């Protein structure tokens, strides 16, 4: 895999809601095959940026290239490359795990055989009895795991995970990150937002966003070293407080 090619290129990205500028001309790249972590407090603009990348939100100005394609012109092609797990919703609670897989596979255009194969693959990673349980009856950790499987049904190259471990216990979060690591090993590119600061250490690179601006970016270890902090959490607090004073 060529690591120098950018899976996502974001240039001078701006989003304005009425008089409020939610994203203030940010620039960053997501390299192919890396895990990029998006860190920031609530309202920092993380989800807004992800939504602009996916085309769910209209860009006020600037550009987003996904695999070299402008998302304001080639969204139909880009959709085939993107997998998205949203923060707010990922599965239909009244449907069983299997029915969710069939639905999301169906709307992604998978054939019956592909759907059967995918269901079998996912079934192998979950206790059999869970497949026929409604999502609303599952614990949050399993639900998120199923949501990730569903997000991967169309075998996307680039995966955007918006707060995937929100509301999940630490043990399940660790297991979830193992899944993310496995995806990276399989050559996938991942952009992950999180408010669990410890999770930043799982990422290849981290971008800290505050008030719609990038305030720090780099490798987690490098950031810690540069700022003489012992943990990302402390670094984060310091960065946010410094930025807030400016």
């Amino acid at each position: 895999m060529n690591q120098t090619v950018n899976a996502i290129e974001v240039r001078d990205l701006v989003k304005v809601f009425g008089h409020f500028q939610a994203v203030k001309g940010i620039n960053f790249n997501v390299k192919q095959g890396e895990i990029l972590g998006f860190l920031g407090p609530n309202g920092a603009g993380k989800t807004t940026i992800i939504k602009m990348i996916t085309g769910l939100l209209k860009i006020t100005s600037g550009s987003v290239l996904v695999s070299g394609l402008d998302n304001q012109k080639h969204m139909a092609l880009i959709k085939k490359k993107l997998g998205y797990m949203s923060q707010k919703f990922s599965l239909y609670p009244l449907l069983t795990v299997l029915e969710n897989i069939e639905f999301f596979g169906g709307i992604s255009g998978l054939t019956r055989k592909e759907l059967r194969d995918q269901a079998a693959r996912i079934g192998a990673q979950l206790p059999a009895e869970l497949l026929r349980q409604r999502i609303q009856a599952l614990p949050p950790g399993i639900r998120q795991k199923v949501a990730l499987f569903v997000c991967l049904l169309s075998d996307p190259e680039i995966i955007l995970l918006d707060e995937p471990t929100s509301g999940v216990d630490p043990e399940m979060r660790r297991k979830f990150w193992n899944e993310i690591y496995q995806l990276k090993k399989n050559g996938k590119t991942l952009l992950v937002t999180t408010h669990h600061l410890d999770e930043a250490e799982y990422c290849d690179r981290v971008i800290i966003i505050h008030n719609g601006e990038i305030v720090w970016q780099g490798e987690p270890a490098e950031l810690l070293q540069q700022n003489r902090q012992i943990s990302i959490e402390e670094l984060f607090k310091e960065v946010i407080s410094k930025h807030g004073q400016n």
Partner: protein
Amino acid sequence: MARIKAIIVKEFFHILRDPRSLIIVFIAPVTMIFILGYAFSFDLNRIDAAVVDFSQSDFSRQLVNRFANNRIFVLHFAGGGTSGGNPLRAAEEMLRKEKIKEIIVIPVNFSRRLTVHGQADFGIIIDASNSNTANLVFQYNEMIVLEFIAEMKKAGQLFKLHTKIYFNPEAKSSFFFIPGQIAAILLMISAMLTSVSISKERETGSIALLFISPLKSYEIIIGKTIPYIIVALLDGVLTLMFSRFWFGIPIHGSLLVLLFFAILYIIAGLSLGILISTTAPTQKAAMLAAQILTMLPSYLLSGFIFPIDSLNPVLQAISYAIPATYFLRIIRGVILKGSELKHFLFEGLMLVLLSAILLLAASRKFSRQRKAVQ
């Protein structure tokens, strides 16, 4: 097609597993027909009348018997003749207390005038605080008095009038109102189902996953519409059967003709629902908007209660843009008159036109919204 099928299957699961959808689909329509079927009625089952007979003659008794023999009238004798007190005042008191709806007053010279002059006066005092009831009471009185006059004059010997009432021989108002209620409910349920379904997707955020998928907007609309056409048709059958077997509404025409027009009508309702969902921020708002935008025009402006000709010109113009205006004529025609497809070419054309306009508007608005979700 596989993508549309996936949405259709998911929608059916949601309808069958969501208690709120089940209530909207299966319980609300029958309950509404049951309640409104009794509430909307211009029929009177009982008229309490006080009789003040100052004449106390054979003729006055014949007249009173005419009322007494009618199953609707329940007579209360307030006195008269040589009895003491003021019977008229007592009867008026009963009228004020709403114990009776009218007073029949027969003057003391009633019999003598009828014998000598061949005509006599008597009075009926009607409580008109409810004008609709007063009109009905008046009509029942008129019918009885005409029969009495005919008997007195032996008019039957000169000519005999044969009256035959078509389509609703007993003139039951339920026969007129219930088909209208089916039309109103069908439009409301259709609009409510789609608007709530799409608003729910927006509220939970699942719409984002549909938008980001390779699904085309028209595929989402078709996938969302087909299950609800089937469900709304089931509702139509359910309410029709309930009306047939509970209220005894006869069905004289072809159900196939009704089905054909019902599909067009339901598409109009579903399209309206999609339009509502593009602006309603929540499920509750969508439900409320669907109720107001369908029920009010259906009840007030479609000819359901008030004839369109009696509306002012502006409201008349609006009534032509309401799908219920046309389906109401069709359902009443098919059910009560046994009318056929050929009798509703104009109504059918208008339903096609309105459905097409609403569907086009809904699709455009939905597609635009998809391009810029927020």
